[in-house]
């Protein structure tokens, strides 16, 4: 799998939605999420710090038979413009994972919007 646009750039209401399961043929050495965020170039994307995205991600290492339990990896982030150390607005928040010894074969989970609605996108990639 190269890159999947799990959420197209658009407006999403409060609430939860499931994503996946996505398959990484042969296992992925690295899986990543890229989430569009607020910049001067497009201030409509995720502008409010009070608007949160919460991910609950489940991983499988055996072809999708067994997944890690919900709550294994939960991550939440607010919006708004954030700057890197060069003073440039960061266009995406990115989180990625790698596992040893067994590569991840499948991923699924839920994403929850609170304090929204939110305008953003979500890309999922695996290498």
């Amino acid at each position, binding site marked *: 799998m190269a890159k999947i646009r799990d959420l197209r750039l658009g407006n999403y209401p409060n609430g939860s939605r499931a994503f996946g399961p996505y398959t990484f043929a042969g296992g992925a050495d*690295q899986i*990543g999420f890229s989430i569009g*965020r607020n910049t001067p170039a497009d201030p409509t994307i995720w502008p409010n710090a009070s608007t949160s995205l919460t991910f609950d991600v489940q*991983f499988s*290492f055996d072809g999708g038979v067994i997944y*890690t339990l919900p709550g*294994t*990896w*939960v*991550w*939440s*982030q607010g919006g708004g413009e*954030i*700057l*890197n*150390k*060069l003073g440039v607005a*960061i266009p*995406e*928040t*990115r*989180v*990625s*994972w*790698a*596992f*040893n*010894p*067994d590569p991840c074969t499948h991923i699924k989970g839920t994403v929850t919007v609170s304090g929204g609605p939110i305008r953003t996108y979500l890309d999922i990639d695996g290498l």
Partner: protein
Amino acid sequence: MAYRSSTTTSFSGTTVLTATAPAGVVAGDRLLAGVAVDGTITVTPATNWTNIGSTLSMTVPDTQGHSLHEKKVATGSDLYNFVGSSVAGAIIQVVCLSNRHATTAAVIGETNPNTGNVSPFTMTLTGVTAAQDDDIIAFSEINGSAQTDTWGTDSPTNYTERHDAANSDWVCAETNTRDNVSAGATGSLTMTATIIVGTNNAGYSAFVVAVPSASTSVNTGLPDNRIYYTKTFGAGGLRA
């Protein structure tokens, strides 16, 4: 039993540094985490984790920090909720070891030469003096001087590379391990760092950690209603 599993979690543009649980963690395992964060960032350890060792603060080629954290006795439902004091790129690498001592402190060698280096260059990691059957983990990081610089490394001799990660946001980090070593000084560990993407200089820092084996209890043959005296086998005999 020693190395069980490990993970790398990379971040860009967040203070929420929730690392990923290694696969198969069970109660009684020992967990260690190397946390590499770009900039001058204070890392709050995850719940019930302890920051051990120094925070290795680099200023060459620019600011970046490296810290080492531990949870001596895992529960199997552990939290990995590290937090940065400000938004930054980061990589957290968590290693799970089985059959390690529940209380004895790890021995740590710290390296922070705070120098710029041109690819390829040799990373010289301060070693440790290990006890018999210690597991050794080498957490290292490379501090790139351009945001998307990506560096790769080989492994120290007799070590197994578990992770060699880059987040395209200033930080590269590596984990190498060696199980059940013999007692004695490891000497310095050397690795070669090579630029993969980019052409710039880099600094580096590292923690080499010796994690004690679980005690080996000696049954003295006394009946169960008597006090058992426990010794731990060390190099060349017994040690208290």
